[in-house]
């Protein structure tokens, strides 16, 4: 039974989102790419993204900070140096001015840290109950260094997959805040700009492809890469960085960290001699817990997890955001 309305699943970044894009958006627009950001000229990359997080404020950040780091990261995933951002606000009538001021100052702070300028914007107000506090659309422009090209077509069998730190932090932070789970201390989001780390590792020339692990988590990226390349991927569970407390909370709620959203993590597909890149990543503030988590193979297709007990099992694409469960 297909329900003819948009549901929350369509916004989760997983299976249903892809369907929306492939069934309605792609056939209608002149999309240059289905990726988050796109190169439109010899050295210009642009991107746009909307931020609808609930709650607006959570430990480790807020919707304003996210609107900067998320868009900066989308540009960085192409190897571009982020330069300008534009912010469009849709504000719900009744949002306290002090909250708006906090959000705006977070945007300014994050922009400064990310070395980008907020150069244009727009503001609209909608009636109460039509807006969830505030929605932010953030568009960005970045410049590609000469010769820089990152894409799934550069990925080859034998490529190693790296990540810059622990997974699941952002999702658990938001789930705790949203559902009043009462976890103390409240887990912090990993919300951060990754442009510095990206500049350093792309300078080696050994990086083939980057993608940030936002909605859908590491599982979504791996499945997308496999779909685009036809290769296989094995992820090693024992190398996956997961904080002890996040692992415990995931077990409590029945969530799998592989599917959880992050806002300060990226996966790196690198040529075989990856130790160099790992070393560089670990020197960065945003990469202290970097790890080699997997590799690409042409021996089969599909995404698999080598579990910590040595067995192999598939990591499938799921349709929508994982929910806490009791069973």
């Amino acid at each position, binding site marked *: *039974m297909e329900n003819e309305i948009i549901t929350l*699943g369509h916004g989760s970044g997983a299976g249903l989102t892809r369907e929306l894009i492939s069934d309605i958006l792609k056939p209608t627009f002149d999309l240059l790419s289905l990726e988050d950001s796109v190169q439109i000229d010899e050295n210009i990359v642009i991107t746009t993204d909307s931020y609808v997080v609930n709650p607006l404020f959570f430990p480790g950040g807020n919707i304003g900070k996210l609107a900067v780091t998320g868009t900066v990261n989308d540009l960085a995933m192409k190897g571009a140096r982020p330069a300008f951002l534009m912010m469009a606000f849709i504000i719900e009538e009744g949002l306290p001015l002090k909250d708006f001021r906090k959000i705006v100052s977070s945007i300014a702070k994050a922009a400064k840290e990310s070395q980008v300028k907020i150069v244009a914007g727009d503001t609209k107000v909608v009636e109460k109950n039509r807006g969830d506090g505030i929605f932010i659309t953030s568009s960005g422009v970045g410049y590609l260094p000469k010769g820089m090209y990152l894409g799934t077509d550069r990925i080859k069998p034998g490529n190693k997959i790296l990540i810059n730190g622990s997974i699941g932090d952002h999702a658990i932070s938001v789930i705790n805040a949203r*559902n009043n*789970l009462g976890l103390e201390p409240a887990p912090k989001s990993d919300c951060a700009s990754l442009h510095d780390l990206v500049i350093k590792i792309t300078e080696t020339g050994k990086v083939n492809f980057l993608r940030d692990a936002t909605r859908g988590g590491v599982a979504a990226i791996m499945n997308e890469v496999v779909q685009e390349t036809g290769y296989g991927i094995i992820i090693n569970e024992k190398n996956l960085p997961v904080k002890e407390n996040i692992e415990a909370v995931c077990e409590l709620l*029945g969530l799998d960290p592989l599917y959880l959203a992050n806002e300060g993590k990226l996966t790196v597909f690198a040529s075989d001699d990856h130790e160099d890149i790992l070393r560089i990543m670990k020197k960065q503030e945003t990469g202290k817990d970097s790890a080699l988590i997997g590799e690409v193979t042409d021996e089969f297709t599909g995404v698999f997890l080598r579990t910590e007990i040595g*067995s*192999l*099992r598939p990591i499938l694409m799921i349709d929508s955001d994982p929910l806490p469960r*009791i*069973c």
Partner: protein
Amino acid sequence: MDKRFRDPLLIETLVKDINEYSSSLKIMEVCGSHTMSIGRWGIRKMIPKSIQLVSGPGCPVCVTPASLIDQLLEIDNITLAIFGDLMRVPGKNGSLEQARARGKDIRIVYSPLDALEIAREKETIFVGIGFETTIPGIAHSIIKAQQLKLSNFSVYPAGKLIPPALEFLLSQKDTILEGFILPGHVSVIIGEEAYDFLVKKFAIGGVITGFEPLDILISIKKLLDQKQKKQPLIDNEYKRVVSHKGNESAKKAIYRVFQPETSLWRGLGEIPDSGLGIKPEFSQFDARLKYSFPELENNEHPGCRCSDVLKGVISPPECKLFKKVCTPKNPLGSCMVSSEGSCAAYYKYEG
């Protein structure tokens, strides 16, 4: 998590041993969390194909009739507090998640106690699905609501009992099962003694099992041995939390608030004394009375063969609807509705 029960070296040797058994085995893992564990650890691929694991009815989402979703959505101006598991079960007019997208106040709670908190401000129905593991907590929340005089709080009693379901399954002529991986956490409450009837009445054994990979593999080995020795018995692999009598104070709480009644199990039909209704003393917290809910209906899709899957008579691909019409995205029956159902697990892991 107890990492000792994930020791890869012990598991490797144990798996080798299991693969040396020549006999076939068809067992039911009763509990949805076992189905999840088995999938998460890749256990199906570690054991020989001659060992068949049938996913049982121990999945609250799988066995709750879809008409409950429809009924809950008919009440206006109410907050529904639910466990996350229920969010995406499709009803006639969509799921609770879709209804929330349309503006209904539906909130996921981790504990029945969280629902009590919501009820301090809003008129709330807590949907009490679950088995003996979950029901004591639900009972406690009702007792607390009475102490606090929380008139905004009510519970839709949708709890179900496992032993009557197992008895029902084994009483069907065509059920083919040779043993059970028994639900570890339900057993924490009801104890080893609750399963004696399996051996006494049906000469079928079971092993009360924990949820780590070593727990599950050891239990499979134990069931293989039981078959080989032709000695069905109730064994307890999960002694670290399960005792002979279970948890008396939890059992007391259940029967202080609830009384057994006939219950409709999606995929199986009506089973006497397998559900729990709220006793008259607590009737003010009974959402079924407060909002005059009608009886739940069994409107299964014609051609749905969930009951045969649950009895071990067929495996998922033998159902004509499997994969062609009935998929995880468009589930038609209980075995596909939750990712723990037999058909959903098969779809995911066997392709």
